[in-house]
């Protein structure tokens, strides 16, 4: 009796173990499948519609074949440059404060929590807020207010970069050993110099990684641009005017009924994803080489 019971029991346990293993493998396969499907389909559709004209020409009016998204790529570059100009310095400075000056204080905890909140703000809400802040009010003596503009889009993206940059900067600075700081101070360097050219410099690979991650995240954002940068069918590099952006153009063209425009949407997606995959791989490469190599 007893042996029979334990035999049945152990068989049941082995079976559940195998079943669970099988299910875990199945789940992984089910998860990997759509990613591979998306990539293959994107490369297939995108590569067929990618040509030189895509990178050099303006979009053609519907019905005409050809055309490209050169203006959208320029627009994305302008927006991302502006966003980085806002997000990177502020984020790094905030990270320096959290790691170097405000360690353990109540203010630092509050700021860290606020950065978390800001990180969780849905991107569409960021668009609404920037619209309410910059585009809705018409103030005569303030430039950029009262209409859709590249500036407002850049501000929205820049704000979205701050929390990521801030948190990675803080984390990386915390990893820098204290002996390095004390050595700099002991040699007579003022604190600001010690922070900027010793601590931050030691942590710079990690900080750059954080900036790249924030950049990659923001590069594909569409939602905050719909009613800030607004899109533009022509060349524009004027910050005071509406500007095209690659993700925004993809969105508009994906919903359009014209085959030529949809083709451009696929090609644009391929370009966008190649850029983002490059950024992520670069980040991973840098991270795998040891973030703080010069530290010890």
């Amino acid at each position, binding site marked *: 009796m007893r042996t029979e019971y334990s035999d049945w029991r152990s068989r049941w346990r082995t079976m559940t173990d195998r079943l669970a293993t099988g299910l875990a493998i199945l789940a992984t396969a*089910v998860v990997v499948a759509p*990613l591979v*499907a998306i990539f293959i389909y994107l490369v297939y559709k995108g590569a067929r519609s990618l040509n030189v004209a895509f990178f050099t020409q303006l979009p053609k009016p519907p019905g005409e074949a050809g055309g490209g998204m050169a203006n959208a790529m320029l627009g994305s570059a302008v927006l991302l440059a502006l966003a980085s100009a806002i997000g990177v310095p502020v984020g790094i400075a905030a990270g320096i404060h959290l790691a170097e000056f405000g360690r353990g204080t109540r203010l630092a905890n509050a700021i860290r929590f606020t950065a978390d909140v800001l990180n969780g703000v*849905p991107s*569409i809400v960021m668009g609404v807020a920037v619209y309410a802040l910059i585009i809705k009010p018409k103030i005569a003596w303030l430039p950029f207010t009262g209409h859709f503009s590249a500036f407002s889009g850049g501000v929205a993206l820049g704000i979205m970069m701050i929390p990521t940059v801030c948190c990675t900067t803080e984390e990386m600075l915390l990893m820098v050993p204290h002996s390095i700081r004390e050595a700099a101070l002991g040699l007579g360097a003022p604190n600001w110099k010690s922070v900027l050219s010793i601590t931050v410099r030691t942590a710079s690979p990690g900080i750059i990684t954080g900036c790249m991650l924030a950049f990659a995240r923001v590069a594909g954002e569409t939602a905050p641009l719909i009613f800030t940068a*607004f899109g533009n069918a022509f060349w524009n590099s004027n910050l005071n005017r509406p500007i095209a952006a690659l993700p925004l153009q993809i969105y508009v063209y994906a919903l359009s009924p014209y085959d030529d425009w949809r083709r451009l949407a696929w090609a644009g997606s391929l370009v966008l994803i190649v850029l983002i995959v490059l950024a992520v791989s670069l980040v991973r490469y840098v991270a795998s080489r040891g973030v703080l190599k010069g530290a010890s």
Partner: protein
Amino acid sequence: MVTAPVPDIRITQPQRATESSGEPGSGTPRQRPKRASAENSEVRRFLMGRGNSAVADRGFQWLMVLCALSIFGIVVLIVTELILRSQLTWHAFGFKFFFSSFVDPDTKKTTYWDPVNGHFSALPFIYGTLVSSFLALLLAVPLAIGVAVFLTEMCPRGLRGPLAFLSELLAAIPSVIYGLWAMYVLVPILREHINPLLGQYLGWTGLFADDNPTGLGFVAAGIILAIMILPIISSLTREVMSAVPHSQREAALALGATRWEMIRMGVLRNARIGIVGAIILGLGRALGETMAVTMVIGNSPEIHRSLLSNGTSMSAVIANEYAEAVSDLHLSALTEIGLALFILTIIVNALARVLVWAVTRGAPAQVLH
């Protein structure tokens, strides 16, 4: 301040540093500083507070504080702007904005959202956001936990790196590209194959009435959302699971547990609070997700029982109508929806953070029973 005379550095009396003692070079410390809590090191405090670089130092410090405070300022500014710009609907509808409905005088049908006649109610959008997000969780959570279990406990070492990289990539793909793929690949598949099947076999529940010829709707939105939140849930679950001490695993195995029993009793049960946190964080992401949802949910402000019918969500209606709002009241209603979405995601995210922290911040493993 390189030329300052270096005073006697005695750890117990750092204030002596300010009065230069006038004997340069005599400052060999008699005690070695204790470096137990290095950030409070007296040596450092002394070195930082000395000399005429103090002005530059203070300026630098203030600049950094200012930048840090700007994060504070931005969030406050966002909240006040959202509140101010939604005053109009708040005064017109009050709390009823979130659950009222209207009857169209011409067609006698129930409507919720009629910008032309000035009828605004957020109910169908809240419904759509909640339904699509929970559908996404329902699909994503078992898969994400399966992936996390596989990657932390079963995966051959050579496969772990590439798979982790893949899931990182999955998280980096922009929402609009998911939407594009969903529109042209997922939705046709649903329309041709899956929706008819669902309608045929599960149609009797009323949840899967196959009366929508487009293939768009809650199911499409839920699936694409599930794909999008999978990486975040699974990577956080992985983090929480690897925070479970190895002794737990070894103890379970030593008592004769099979691998699954070890995972179930030793790992998952210890990590459950953190896993719940990861799931809620995924929910927070799903609630605010805009582009992909907008492209496949169908965008009709109605409430249907069937998951296969067209719907809409809070983020989708803002994306679709904000730039072309017909009146100030319309704009204000959309802003109020944005405010509600903001508050909802903050609550959800804060809850998730607290739960994840509780586990990864060195909480001791519990004794199992």
